[in-house]
């Protein structure tokens, strides 16, 4: 038996849905049509969703919060979130704004990702500023280019559109905070599920802004840090390392178990903490570090053990004229 046949056997006994169940799905799928047509822009950006998968898993704590440095890879020190974020705002605010790329230029991004138990994986992305072409390279593999049709009705914003969205955001931190809390564009839960608490959404959306690839206008960048400083439960640890081994400022969000029951295990202990890491001097975005505090349990067995951290690191970013390897 070859690998494809074997694969076709895997989960082959998953059944088709019952007629009754399909009727319910059908009603949902077709009923929402009218509403969506009336309000056509209830949606988000693909890049955002990718980031939200990570950021959405941000561990949140309060009571039952473990100390910051339970593993050998992390020797951190908790510092004043307000002081650090205000300082970060001052620093980035003085930067000169980046020139906007031309539509036919490409945004280049190189990052390394370390999955729990896996080896480091280097990925390079080129996205043309107008969003119509993308290129991607894994490790030492070939550059694969593809044509891309952005769909504003389905989570896609081109870099150019994302830049326009960022440019339109308020740079007053309180107004920015109010806007991201209320922004229906960035819902993490499907409709019909309980809505994300406003602060949780605010932290997640602001994290997405920091992670995305379009250069942030300095005033907005500063406002993002100041807005984060206003969210109760934001913690900042010094000495958090990214996947490249660089130590930086780690920002995490822990509103307490009442606000996020799924972030805690059956004994009320925090499962994981998800840091955004900033350069301690320039406050540039370095990467992420998700610390697995508790075993992840599937069916009573450990699927991802405590200590199996997820890390990423931004290795390079820039504007280039074509998707090619930098020399």
């Amino acid at each position, binding site marked *: 038996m070859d*690998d494809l046949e074997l*694969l076709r056997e895997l989960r082959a006994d998953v059944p088709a849905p019952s007629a009754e169940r399909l009727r319910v799905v059908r009603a949902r799928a077709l009923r929402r049509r009218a509403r969506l047509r009336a309000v056509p822009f209830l949606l988000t950006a693909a890049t955002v969703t990718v980031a939200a998968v990570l950021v959405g898993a941000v561990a949140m704590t309060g009571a039952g919060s473990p100390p910051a440095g339970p593993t050998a890879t992390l020797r951190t020190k908790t510092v004043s979130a307000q002081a650090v974020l205000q300082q970060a705002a001052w620093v980035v605010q003085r930067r000169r704004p980046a020139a906007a790329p031309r539509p036919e230029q490409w945004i280049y991004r190189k990052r390394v990702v370390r999955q729990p138990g896996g080896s480091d994986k280097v990925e390079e992305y080129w996205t043309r500023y107008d969003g119509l072409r993308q290129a*991607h390279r894994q490790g030492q593999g070939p550059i694969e280019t593809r044509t891309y049709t952005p769909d504003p009705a389905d989570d896609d914003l081109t870099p150019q559109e994302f830049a326009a969205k960022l440019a339109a955001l308020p740079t007053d931190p309180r107004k920015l905070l109010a806007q991201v809390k209320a922004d229906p564009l960035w819902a993490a839960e499907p409709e019909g599920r309980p809505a994300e608490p406003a602060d949780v959404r605010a932290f997640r959306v602001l994290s997405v802004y920091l992670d995305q690839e379009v250069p942030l206008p300095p005033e907005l960048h500063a406002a993002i840090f100041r807005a984060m400083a206003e969210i109760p439960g934001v913690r900042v640890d010094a000495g958090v390392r990214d996947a490249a081994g660089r130590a930086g400022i780690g920002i995490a969000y822990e509103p307490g178990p009442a606000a996020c029951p799924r972030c805690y295990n059956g004994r009320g202990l925090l499962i994981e903490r998800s840091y955004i890491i900033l350069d301690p001097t320039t406050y540039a975005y370095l990467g992420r570090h998700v610390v697995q505090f508790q075993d992840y349990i599937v069916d009573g067995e450990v699927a991802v053990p405590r200590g199996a951290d997820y890390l990423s690191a931004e290795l390079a970013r820039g504007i280039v004229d074509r998707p090619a390897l930098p020399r």
Partner: protein
Amino acid sequence: MITDNEPDDAEVIDRALRDPSAFSALFDRHASALHRYVARRLGDSLADDVVAETFMAAFRRLKRYDTTHRDARPWLYGIAANLIGKHRRTEVRAYLALSRIGTDEVAESHTDRVEARVSASSAHRELAGALAVLSPEDREVLLMIAWADLSYEEVSRALGIPIGTVRSRLHRARRKTREALGGSDPSAVEEEAARG
């Protein structure tokens, strides 16, 4: 399911552009198989959401449908692929759990009896381990072919990538799964070339 008298998908879509109620025919034709495919990848609990969202997104994009393609399956599976991708961690965790401890939360998610645990063969555990570490792009192509029974050409349309890229991703994915299964099988390579 489609008889000679029924309109094909392109005609359904053409009608739905003028009369939105015609769109439901597309759901009735494809939702069940799509639901099973999604459940196979993400487990029972997410399938309803993903299928409903797929058809909602499809409806919003009706105007862009190229009606020279009579069969809408590649288009729908391409939309579903984006939505499935949002649950990547869930998907990968299940493969990891299957490979490490031999129980499959996806296979179990649709069984009523809690005690009906599915104990996987060692080959399936190795296969799941390989699925967990494939790149999302390679995994997408592999599972569209193995589980959704799409052809190379259909996968190419579904994902908006050239057929050559479909082939190279599939080739890479199969090489990795074969490695995980303990060595390569030359006959499988030949078969793959013949499928093209």
